[in-house]
């Protein structure tokens, strides 16, 4: 505990003595973290829009013309009991024709010459969102296609695949950019702490000769990195929240539909940002101090 007290006192003095370089470091960290948070926010919003679109995604299972009532009932029961299917809707031949009439509107005249109803009966299945991955949907479709009475399955395979690719690319982008920025923050803290370490080289040499342990020598530098990371993170969280609140209020005034695309990040993210800043800065400080030899 005494080592922590001494280290905190040392850090406080150093913080004040080196206020300008500290301020620049903290601002650099906060800019870096803000960029990461902004990217996460964009990805988060894109993802939630994609998820919303995906909710309406469904499979249309067309049935054979000669399907029996018994087979239809069996299919309906199997679909309803399937835990991966969220919603089942049966469209009879008659209902399908009615819907086509409604869709065609004034052009429905072209259907007048039909001798019999050419449309098949079908099931519209809405899958659970956890299943909305191209390969899983494909697998499900193949499964259903083998069932008795099923003629054909249709679903927006390409559309789903594109959505999934966009979402995956965004996440990958966030990881790559986030990783690069975290490395940059580590380097910023590393440089600052390295400067402090060299400035205090005489003091460190004297401390070593007086019997200071490695922990005693290292701790003030690690704490300094920790404080810089936390402060940078807090500034970043506050800035992002402030900018988000301000812009969403102003933009919504003349573009109300933007609300759909502007969801705030969960509160945990605002807490995680200072913690991530702290962790990365401590790593930078640890590398900067290096191995202490006697």
């Amino acid at each position, binding site marked *: 505990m*005494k080592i922590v007290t001494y280290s905190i006192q040392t850090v406080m003095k150093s913080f004040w003595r080196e206020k300008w370089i500290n301020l620049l470091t903290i601002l650099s960290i906060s800019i870096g973290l803000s960029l990461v948070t902004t990217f996460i926010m964009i990805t988060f919003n894109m993802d939630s829009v994609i998820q919303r679109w995906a909710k309406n995604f469904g499979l249309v299972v067309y049935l054979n013309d000669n399907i029996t009532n018994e087979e239809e009932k069996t299919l309906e029961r199997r679909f309803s009991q399937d835990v991966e299917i969220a919603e089942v809707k049966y469209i009879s031949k008659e209902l399908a024709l009615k819907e086509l009439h409604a869709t065609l509107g004034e052009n429905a005249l072209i259907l007048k010459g039909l001798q019999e109803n050419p449309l098949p009966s079908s099931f519209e299945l809405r899958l659970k969102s956890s299943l909305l991955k191209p390969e899983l949907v494909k697998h499900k479709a193949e499964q259903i296609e083998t069932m008795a009475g099923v003629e054909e399955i249709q679903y927006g395979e390409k559309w789903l695949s594109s959505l999934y690719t966009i979402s995956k690319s965004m996440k990958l982008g966030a990881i790559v950019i986030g990783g690069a920025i975290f490395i940059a923050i580590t380097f910023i803290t590393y440089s600052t702490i390295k400067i402090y370490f060299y400035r205090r080289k005489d003091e460190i040499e004297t401390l*070593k000769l*007086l019997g200071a342990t490695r922990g005693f020598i290292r701790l003030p530098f690690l704490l300094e990195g920790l404080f810089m990371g936390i402060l940078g993170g807090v500034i970043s969280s506050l800035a992002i929240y402030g900018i988000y609140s301000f812009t969403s209020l102003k933009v919504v005034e003349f573009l109300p539909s933007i609300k759909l695309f502007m969801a705030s990040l969960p509160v945990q993210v605002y807490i995680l940002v200072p913690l991530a800043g702290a962790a990365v800065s401590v790593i930078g400080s640890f590398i900067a101090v290096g191995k202490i030899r006697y």
Partner: protein
Amino acid sequence: MIEFSKVTKYYEDDVILKDLTFTIDKGELAFITGPSGAGKSTLLKMIYCDERPDSGQIIVAGWDLGMLKQKTIPFLRRNVGIVFQDFRLLLNKTVFDNVALALRVHYLNAQSIRDDVNAVLKEVKLSHKAGTYPAHLSGGEQQRVVIARAMVAKPTVLLADEPTGNLDIDNSKKIMALFREINARGTTVLIATHSRGLYHGTGRRVFFIKDHQIEKDVIG
């Protein structure tokens, strides 16, 4: 308390000390002397592991230094007070803080540190300079601060490297009186000096280093 057994030290290809063997008993005050470059400082540095011998064995206060791991060295050094030739005072810290540093590494609480530092500053007659920075002290005062820092943690061994090198006769006498006081309390004191006046007539053992070896071990 300090045992050297066939200790040899090289700097690159140059031999500095060769087959050095001697013992300093617990509670003794002894001197090491010899011309400049004889290896006096190197000898002291080997006692607190700032230098390692190339061969031979050194035992200090029961620690076999050859067996000492890096992480154990701080604990040895807490038992060895050092009066450095170049003082090694931190110019951005006051006299009080410079002395307190030797106790802070022991993780003592603030009150104990305050009491011990004030007591030792009183002993070296520098209480009135506690808040002063080293740059504003005379050479003799700086040397007394260094001695205060070396003795404040009550080490079992105290090493002094040319402690009066930059001081006049009057200040040298004061410094030597301090070493005698510290020794009288049971601390083993080893002083490296090239100044004959420091050990002459003291009645203490003096080790003369010449040609990398202890030439003679006499009473000064």
